[in-house]
């Protein structure tokens, strides 16, 4: 039999061995008295070191020569210094800063560009948009079969209909009105023959020396509006129907206060889809999105697979969104729906970015109260019973006083939450990927699944080792916890549930002992139960790891 080396034993005792090594050392120790005696000696030396710290260093090193100063006072001084750098320092910082902090000035430069972008959008962009929109509308109109169309004209005092290109109306009064309107439009350099057209509007707009445009997106139309200080017409707007950009309405205001509104009369002989069939691409729709629901990504519907779902989970894992964010993943016949409730906007964006590139995935966020997957905490608070307080005092005594107990409580309770996040993540994997689903995965996807498990289990192992280290002072000398890992499962999926139950037990006991939650057990047994539950959990982590490794083969 090859005996354990000293370093192996020391690392084992210090919780610094990799998991695989822990199992080996443990089984060797069970079999070998010699190594166990060696370990015992090691513990004795460690105990002596601890005694040396307490009885020699703490006792005989000279105490601080002065009383400790009020640290809050020093904080205030630090705050004041941080808030008021000297003039020279500020100048130096200003010069040094961009060189030393390229990562910081890049976002600032980006912010300036965004501000410029907004300015461009507000002041310059509409002109570009208007010109582009009109150009496309003209192209679209040219592609349509040339045809006269009927329009309705409204002015302050008249309402009449007319067919474009015809100068005469059916009655003399209307003819007179039409003639005066023609004079008005001609004086304004606007083509009266076809006033409700992108081409006429474009021609009028392009001869203006001085103009300001506005492009307004509406649900099924886009309106371009131009006002100007030059010419007789001071303000005009043209509404184009989406997606074919056919003009449906125009409004024209003149400097003398007159206004004219022209509306297209639906041509019943022309099917409404006619224009949509022409070559014009409704690009403005793409370049000027009519604000689709910002947090919905939708991709074409092809039935998503279990592998797609795995990729979504892996992408969420990249941003830690598989560790406690209130997200639900559903795979339907057409998509993988990731829905989240009560998630902060910044986090929503991170999640969007993480999975946005995945195919067949939809993301939906709602802002109602989070619908947690985790078991609800009850809201009642129970004061610690006298027995529980006594138990805590005993533990405190064992580990060197109340201050140590408080410190320990802080540390172990802080660990409990992230530990459970990992366990829940592993449990979700077991639920989503039963054995038959894993069968369907290609080798690289299995590797990916394995990688996810490996990361969670590594974190869990580190957290439980840390718990073990923290709780070590509670352990009476010589009494190790019960370390037998009675996992009956032979594959990782059912083993997950056992791991989960074990972790829940540790979590509960931690809350009882350090958080003073009530318990069903006799209080004096709790610390022992915690230590053995933790030992079991650590052993189950090893078993899980072993079982999940099988998947790779």
């Amino acid at each position, binding site marked *: 039999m090859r005996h354990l080396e*000293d*370093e192996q034993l*020391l690392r084992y005792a*210090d919780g*610094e061995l990799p998991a695989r090594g822990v199992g080996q050392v443990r089984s060797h120790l069970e079999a070998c008295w010699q190594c166990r005696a060696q370990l015992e*000696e*090691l513990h004795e*030396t*460690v105990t*002596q*070191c*601890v005694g*040396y*710290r307490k009885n*020699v*260093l*703490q*006792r*005989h*090193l*000279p*105490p*601080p*020569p*002065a009383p*400790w100063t009020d*640290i*809050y006072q020093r*904080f205030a001084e*630090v705050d004041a210094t*941080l808030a008021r750098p000297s003039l020279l320092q500020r100048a130096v910082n200003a010069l040094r800063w961009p060189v030393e902090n390229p990562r910081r000035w890049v976002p600032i430069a980006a912010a300036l560009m965004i501000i410029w972008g907004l300015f461009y959008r507000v002041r310059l962009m509409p002109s570009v948009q208007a010109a582009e929109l009109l150009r496309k509308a003209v192209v679209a109109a040219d592609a349509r079969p040339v045809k006269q169309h009927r329009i309705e004209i409204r002015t302050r005092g008249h309402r009449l209909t007319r067919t474009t290109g015809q100068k005469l109306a059916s009655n003399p009064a209307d003819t007179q009105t039409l003639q005066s309107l023609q004079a008005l439009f001609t004086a304004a350099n606007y083509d009266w023959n076809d006033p409700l057209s992108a081409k006429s509007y474009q021609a009028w707009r392009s001869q203006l020396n001085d103009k300001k445009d506005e492009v307004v997106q509406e649900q099924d139309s886009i309106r371009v509006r131009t006002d100007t200080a030059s010419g007789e017409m001071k303000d005009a707007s043209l509404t184009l129907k989406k997606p074919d950009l056919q003009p449906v309405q125009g409004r024209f205001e003149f400097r003398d206060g007159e206004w004219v509104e022209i509306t297209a009369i639906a041509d019943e002989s022309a099917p409404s889809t006619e224009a949509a069939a022409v070559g014009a691409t409704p690009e403005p729709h793409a370049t000027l999105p009519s604000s689709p629901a910002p947090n919905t990504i939708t991709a074409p519907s092809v039935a998503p697979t279990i592998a797609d779902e795995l990729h979504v989970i892996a992408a969420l894992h990249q941003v830690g969104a598989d560790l406690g964010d209130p997200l639900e993943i559903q795979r339907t016949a057409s998509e993988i729906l990731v829905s989240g409730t009560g998630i902060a906007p910044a986090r929503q964006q991170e999640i969007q970015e993480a999975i946005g590139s995945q195919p067949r995935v939809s993301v939906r966020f709602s802002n109602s109260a989070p619908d947690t997957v985790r*078991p*609800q*905490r*009850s*809201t*009642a*608070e*129970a004061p610690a019973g006298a027995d529980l307080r006594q138990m805590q005092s005993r533990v405190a005594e064992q580990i060197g006083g109340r*201050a140590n107990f408080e*410190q320990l*409580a*802080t540390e172990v*309770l*802080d660990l*409990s*939450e992230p530990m459970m996040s990992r366990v829940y993540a592993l449990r979700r994997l077991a639920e989503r990927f039963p054995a038959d689903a894993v069968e369907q995965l290609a080798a690289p996807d299995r590797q990916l699944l394995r990688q996810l498990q490996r990361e969670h289990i590594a974190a869990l192992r580190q957290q439980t080792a840390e718990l073990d280290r923290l709780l070590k002072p509670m352990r009476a000398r010589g009494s190790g916890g019960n370390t037998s890992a009675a996992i009956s499962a032979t594959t990782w999926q059912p083993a997950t549930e056992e791991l989960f139950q074990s972790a*829940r037990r540790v*979590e*509960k006991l*931690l*809350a*009882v002992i*350090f*958080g*003073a*939650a*009530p*318990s*069903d057990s006799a209080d004096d047994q709790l610390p022992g139960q915690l230590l053995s539950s933790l030992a079991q959990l650590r052993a189950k982590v090893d078993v899980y790891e072993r079982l999940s490794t099988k998947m790779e083969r």
Partner: protein
Amino acid sequence: MSSFSLGKELSGILQKDRATMTLQDQVAQLFQEARDDVYRYLLSLGLFPPQAQEATQEVFLRLYVTLKKGEDIQSHRAWIFRVAHNLGLKLRAKQNQAPFDPELELRMVAPEMNPEQTALDREQKLRFHQAIQRLSEQQRRCLFLRLEGLRYPEIGAALGISTSAVGEFLRRAVNRLKKDEL
């Protein structure tokens, strides 16, 4: 209501309380808990008591500034000892005199300091102290940092050596102490 859910609730409340502590309170609490340990560690590096006391406060002020800048520190204790170690060495290098000697042996044998101690006790303690003094500097530093609760990677980060080197130094230290004891 299950005791499980109540337990979660209570631990949640406790954690929330800590979360609502101001940064100053948090650092002040750490200062309260760890200042004596840091001070003694700095003495063990050879700093004189006034210097060690000032440096200890400096370490916690640096911690305050670092946390205020929003930096994430995994283990405060490990961070504190790492900074204390580096600051201690820097200050000692500037020191124009021999490192501080606490004359522990003299204090340990002075009967008035240890009235309850038997001669045998005293002899055992003295022997162990001498064994510690015989360790190499790195072995002693690793051992002292381990005694302060640091994990191997944290000790490695403080001393600027690899985790496996920490394991090796500690192994040698423990072996020598064991041998000297026999």
